[in-house]
Structure formats: structure tokens, C-alpha cells
């Protein structure tokens, strides 16, 4: 049975995974990928069929768990935001060598224009790097269909598959036709050649050769894939290659059909024969791709002495940021980008920490306590508390990648700097902070670490945090002295006490950890509302 639902791209992917009979979804939250896992967590079908959906501690543990599922013959999906791919990279790249037994689909949600991210890295590079085929849907329906297909493809070809989406695909709703049933899990069964999973050099060398052969086959398949389409046109002065969602922005401008030949690409490795056809039949090629100019760079090469190529690198299309139907206009000969000047009275409205948020009290007290040390540096991390960089607090000096606060403070201290303070959230601490704290404890670095514990993963909407209830024990176990693990309650009335604790720990020459603990105001009020609703 088929039914039509209004779904986010993320939800369409989740639905497809359930219909494909996954054994579990493995993920760490990250905008714009979070709703995939949340959809499965809220699904009755998933519950009835025992589909695993608990959040993982980070993207690497997620990817590895999925490989375990695959090894025993079942299907798994892994979801993350683009920067999560960096964390999962060791497992991901090596999974290109082991290959897959049960189907593995990795969803990487890129965020061009950096709506809520540190960079706009393009996950397609990872596919290329790991010899893993990539699917890039252009509509929510395609996201659903491709996810279904990707699981079958993964098993048939014996390789994990990367599904690359972007913010607009993830967070846009459309009507999607979906199946009505949960796919059945496969019976447990092991890899045909178990040695493929033992990546000792002898096995890896053999596998590498096999993977390179497979890659040729995958390229041929791309050339014949239904997801890559060559649509001929009469005006061959230019051919247009549109990857993934870029196709929509092109066609938005070409409501009555495109005069130029168009190649829509949604399956990688690149369809070489189709691209060669365009190069031989057209005088020039325009490349429209969301994210970084991956294909354009390949086509151009270093020498750039072939057919004329237009795109992000040549300046016809903006070098950075998301594409849209407006900013590609000059490149397709439709004149200038329309003006987007807003009235002068309109001012920016930057995001801020919520009123009543415990992070506010943490920064207020930290700023006070650090007044005595005008040259202090506060290395921070990624989460709601990163907003402490903005006025009124202006309390932090760095935010780089998850976990970097503790290790950067350690490095600064190693290099002779004092006072080096780290501020990290509870979920970020368990994601990537624990190993850094172990380093710091092992070398008795002179740092003060604040783990601002709001008992949730706040920034991404309040998911469970892996270390809740265990933080003191974790810190003690990695070697922080018990007397220098201090728990406080971040409330205005406790300001003097917190300041005193911070000062004492700054004075201590070694690793100290201060844990201000108070529940996130958002999860707190959500629970209160739910409770009220239940009573009504």
C-alpha cells in the first residue's frame, strides 16, 4: 500500500530506512540531520519492530556500530551533519575497504551558507576519497526513493553508500509517496569473505585492488543510472551540469524547458560518458553544484586547457554559499541578480542564550572571577554556550571543533600560558572531551575546565546527553583529583559561592573540573508542559 504524506526531507529518509527494514539508526545530533533519527525514535512501527534508535556518543561510535550491524548481515543507517563526517572519518574511510555485508547508508547533511555550522565542507569529497558511491537527491521524493534504492545497492555492490543532502533538502517539506509497511529485517548472516574485515596489510592490499575495480564498475553504473539524466536541448553553445538540488534552481528559471542541454547528476562516481558527451556536443559547460566546486575542479584540472568551463571557480556562480534561483541567473544568461537591499531601519537580530539559562550564570560568574587576570583566555567549544562569545558576555576566545576546548587549554598551558580555562558542554564533553581530559590529567596540565552541564544536548533541540549522571565519575576515572571536581548550581543567588570556587580552582596548579549543573530551561519547560497536558 502507498500513501502520501507531507514530510521533511529528513523524515522522508527516515521513513525509507524503516521501509527498508533497518535494524537500527545510529547517529549523534547535528543540524540539519537531527530529525531523521528523531522521526525513527517517535515511530510506532520502529518500536514494534525493535529498531534501535538511541543516540550515540559521537559520529564515530555511530559509524562503527553500523558496521557491526552490517557485519552480522542486517541493515543500518548512520546520520550526521557534515562536520560529523570528520569525526566518523576513520571508520567511514576504512569501511570503503571492508565493504558492507548488510546494507549501510550513511547520511551526511551539509550546510552550505553555514546556517548553523562552522564551515561549509562538501561531503561528496569523502565519497570520492573513500571510493564510496554517493547519492544526492534533488527532491524529497527522490530522497525517499534513493534511500530505498541505496540499501539494495549497498548490499548488491558490497559497499557502504553515502547519501549527501543539504539544509534545504533536510529542512523542507513536500508531499512524498511512501510505502505503508516496515521492511523485514534479514536473518543474521556473516560476510562471504570474513578476511575482508580484518584490515591487516595483506588483506587490505587485496581489498584495495578489488575496491578500485569496483569503482570502475560503479562509474559505469552511474552512466546508466536513472538518477543521472541527459536532457538534450537545441542551443549547444553551452551545456549545463546540475548536481543534486542545484537542478531545482536551474529549472525554477526554466519553467518552459531549458534550451541548453542539461545533465542532471544525482549518483556518483561521476557519469563519465555522459559528461564526455556534453563536452563533445557543446561549446562550453556550466557547472551548478551545491557546496564546493568538486566536479568543476575535476573538469578543469590544473591545466584548464580544454573546453570552456563556467562555475564557482570562474566567477559566474558565487564562489561560496548556497545556490538559489536568483544567484545563478547571470550564469544562465538571465541578467543580473535582482536587488536584495532591505530598508535601513531593519537591524540584525542575533540569536542569544535563553532567559533563565544556566549558561548565563556560568558566564556571569566566570567573567567576575577572571577580572583579576586581565590576560586570561577561555577556550570554549560547540553548543548553546558558544553564544557566550556575543554581547553581553563576550566571555570566550575560541570555538573550533567539538572537544577542542580542553585540549586547546592544555596546549596553551603546555606552552607556558596562565590562566587557561576551558568551557565545554556536557554532551560535547562526552562526544570528544574525555580523551583530552585524560591527556591533561596524565601531564598534570595547569588548566581549569568548566563542564557546563544542562543535562541535555541543548543546541540541537534537547536530546539525551550520553554522560548524564556520570560526569564526576568520568572525570575522576581519567585522573582528576576528587577534591578538584567541584559541582555548583548556576543560579544568581549562588554567584558568590561560584566565584569563590572558580578562584580556588584557578589557584590550584593542576587539572580542576568545575561542573555547574542545572537543567536546560527549554527541556525543563517542555517537561512541565507535557506533565500539565497529561493531567488535563
Amino acid at each position, binding site marked *: 500500500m502507498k500513501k502520501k504524506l*507531507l514530510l521533511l526531507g529528513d523524515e522522508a529518509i527516515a521513513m525509507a530506512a524503516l521501509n527498508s527494514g533497518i535494524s537500527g539508526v545510529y547517529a549523534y545530533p547535528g*543540524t*540539519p540531520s*537531527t*530529525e531523521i533519527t528523531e522521526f525513527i525514535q517517535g515511530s510506532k512501527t520502529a518500536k514494534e519492530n525493535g529498531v534501535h534508535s538511541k543516540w550515540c556518543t559521537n559520529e564515530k561510535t555511530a559509524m562503527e556500530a553500523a558496521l557491526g550491524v552490517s557485519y552480522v548481515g542486517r541493515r543500518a543507517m548512520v546520520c550526521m551533519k557534515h562536520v560529523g563526517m570528520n569525526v566518523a572519518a576513520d571508520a567511514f574511510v576504512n569501511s570503503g575497504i571492508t565493504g558492507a555485508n548488510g546494507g549501510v547508508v550513511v547520511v551526511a547533511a551539509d550546510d552550505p551558507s553555514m*546556517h*548553523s555550522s562552522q564551515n561549509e565542507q562538501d561531503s561528496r569529497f569523502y565519497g570520492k576519497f573513500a571510493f564510496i558511491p554517493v547519492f544526492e537527491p534533488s527532491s524529497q521524493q527522490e530522497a525517499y526513493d534513493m534511500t530505498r534504492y541505496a540499501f539494495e545497492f549497498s548490499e548488491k555492490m558490497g559497499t557502504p553508500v553515502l547519501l549527501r543532502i543539504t539544509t*534545504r*533538502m533536510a*529542512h*523542507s*517539506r*513536500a*508531499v512524498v509517496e511512501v510505502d505503508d509497511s516496515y521492511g523485514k529485517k534479514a536473518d543474521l548472516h556473516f560476510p562471504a569473505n570474513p578476511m575482508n574485515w580484518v584490515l591487516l596489510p595483506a588483506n587490505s592490499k587485496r581489498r584495495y585492488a578489488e575496491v578500485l575495480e569496483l569503482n570502475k564498475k560503479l562509474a559505469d553504473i552511474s552512466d546508466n543510472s536513472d538518477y543521472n539524466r541527459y536532457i538534450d536541448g537545441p542551443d549547444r553553445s553551452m551545456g549545463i551540469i546540475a548536481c543534486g*538540488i542545484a537542478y*531545482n*534552481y536551474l*529549472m*525554477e528559471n526554466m519553467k518552459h524547458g531549458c534550451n541548453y542541454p542539461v545533465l542532471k547528476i544525482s549518483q556518483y562516481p561521476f557519469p563519465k560518458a555522459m559528461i564526455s558527451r556534453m563536452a563533445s556536443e557543446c561549446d562550453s559547460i556550466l557547472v551548478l553544484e551545491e557546496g564546493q566546486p568538486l566536479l568543476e575542479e575535476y573538469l578543469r584540472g590544473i591545466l584548464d586547457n580544454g573546453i570552456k568551463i563556467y562555475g564557482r571557480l570562474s566567477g559566474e556562480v558565487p564562489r561560496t554559499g548556497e545556490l*538559489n*534561483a*536568483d544567484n545563478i541567473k547571470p550564469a544562465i544568461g538571465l541578467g543580473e*541578480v*535582482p*536587488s*536584495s*537591499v*532591505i*530598508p535601513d*531601519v*531593519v*537591524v*540584525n*537580530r*542575533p*540569536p*542569544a*542564550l*535563553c532567559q533563565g539559562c544556566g549558561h548565563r550564570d556560568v558566564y556571569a560568574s566566570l567573567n567576575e572571577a577572571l577580572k583579576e587576570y586581565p590576560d586570561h583566555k577561555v577556550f570554549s567549544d560547540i553548543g*548553546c554556550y558558544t*553564544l557566550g562569545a556575543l554581547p553581553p558576555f563576550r566571555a570566550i576566545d575560541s570555538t573550533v571543533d567539538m572537544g577542542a576546548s580542553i585540549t586547546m587549554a592544555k596546549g596553551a598551558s603546555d606552552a607556558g600560558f596562565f590562566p587557561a580555562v576551558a568551557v565545554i558542554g556536557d554532551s560535547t564533553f562526552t562526544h570528544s572531551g574525555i580523551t583530552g581530559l585524560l591527556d591533561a590529567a596524565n601531564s598534570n596540565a595547569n588548566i581549569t575546565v568548566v563542564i557546563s552541564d544542562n543535562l541535555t544536548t541543548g*543546541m*540541537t*533541540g534537547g536530546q539525551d546527553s550520553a554522560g548524564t549522571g556520570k560526569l564526576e565519575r568520568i572525570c575522576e576515572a581519567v585522573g582528576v583529583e576528587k577534591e578538584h571536581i567541584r559541582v555548583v548550581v548556576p543560579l544568581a543567588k549562588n554567584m558568590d559561592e561560584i566565584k569563590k570556587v572558580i578562584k580556588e580552582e584557578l589557584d590550584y596548579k593542576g587539572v580542576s573540573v568545575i561542573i555547574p549543573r542545572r537543567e536546560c530551561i527549554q527541556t525543563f519547560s517542555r517537561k512541565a508542559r507535557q506533565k500539565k497536558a497529561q493531567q488535563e
Partner: protein
Amino acid sequence: MKKDIILAGVGGQGILSIATIIGEAAMNCGLNIKQAEVHGMSQRGGDVQSNLRISSAPILSDLIPLRGADIIISLEPMESLRYLPFLAENGWVVTNSEPFINIPNYPETDAVMAELKKVKNLVVLDVDKIAKECGNPRAANMVLLGAATPYLGMDMARIEEGIESIFARKGHEVVESNVKALRAGRAVAESK
């Protein structure tokens, strides 16, 4: 039929509930829909917007092009101005009149109103006040939606059915009071 709608407001004001109801109504009319929302960073009291596109023809881009929006519906006056470059020549702005001030440099209200007055097709109303008068202070969004209904190109009945299916599980009374707020909003637009 094609309507491109920009919904605007400040994180936490709940613009998405308006999108949900229009989306529901459009689906019941058998129309195509795309609705792009913003999640994450910008929800912490920052500006938020959603692009809602409904059309009898297939919709390609998830985003509304510049000068393409038929309506801007905004829960906050300054936020409605932020998206003016997207407003089509004959497009409408339907906005709440009451500023949401959570930044130190919020402009003078008079300056915001003066800028708004320059918009050719404009409906400004105090949605909170009207919602209170209707006896449901939580239905301010529905008042705003109501004021936009004359320009949505869909039957009022379809929108009311949308409200019904979204609020049905909260009981008949909640549905009724939201529909009442919707009608009160529409009355303001019609008296223009």
C-alpha cells in the same frame, strides 16, 4: 494557482504553526507544497522565516526567488520588512503591529511603521489584542493567519478544516476558539 508565502517572526513566536495549517489546507485542496523552515542556531531568539510555496503545477526550488512572494505574513513588524526584497510587485504584507524587542538597538517603532506604510498592499493588526478579545490569548497566530486568508487563494472552509485536523486531538473547544480567532483576523483584513 500559485502562492509563494514568506512567514516571518522571532524564534519562539511559533510561525511554523501557521505554515502547518496552510500546508494542511493546501494538501486537502490537492495542491503541491514545499515548505522550507529554519532550524538550529536561529531559533534562540533570532530572526526566523519559512518559505511556503503552494501551486497547482510542480514546484522546483524550495526557496522563493527575490520579488517572487505573493504574501509576507509576519508576527513582528520589523521582521516583515526584512523580507521586502522578496515581495512581488503586487504582493501583500500582513503583519502584527506589536514589536518584539529583545535587542538593545531595536529601531523606533514610528520608524518601523513609517517604513511599513510605504508598502502598497498592507494589513497591520494587533494580533495579541484581538486574540484576547476572542477569549483565547494563545491564538494570536490564528488571528494573523485569518488576516492573510483573503490573499491565499484557498477557500476559507479549507483553512478552517486545516485548523480542525491540527487541533482535533485537543478537543472541540480548542478548535472552536482557534476558528473564532481566525475569523476575527479575517474580518480585520476585509474591513480594509
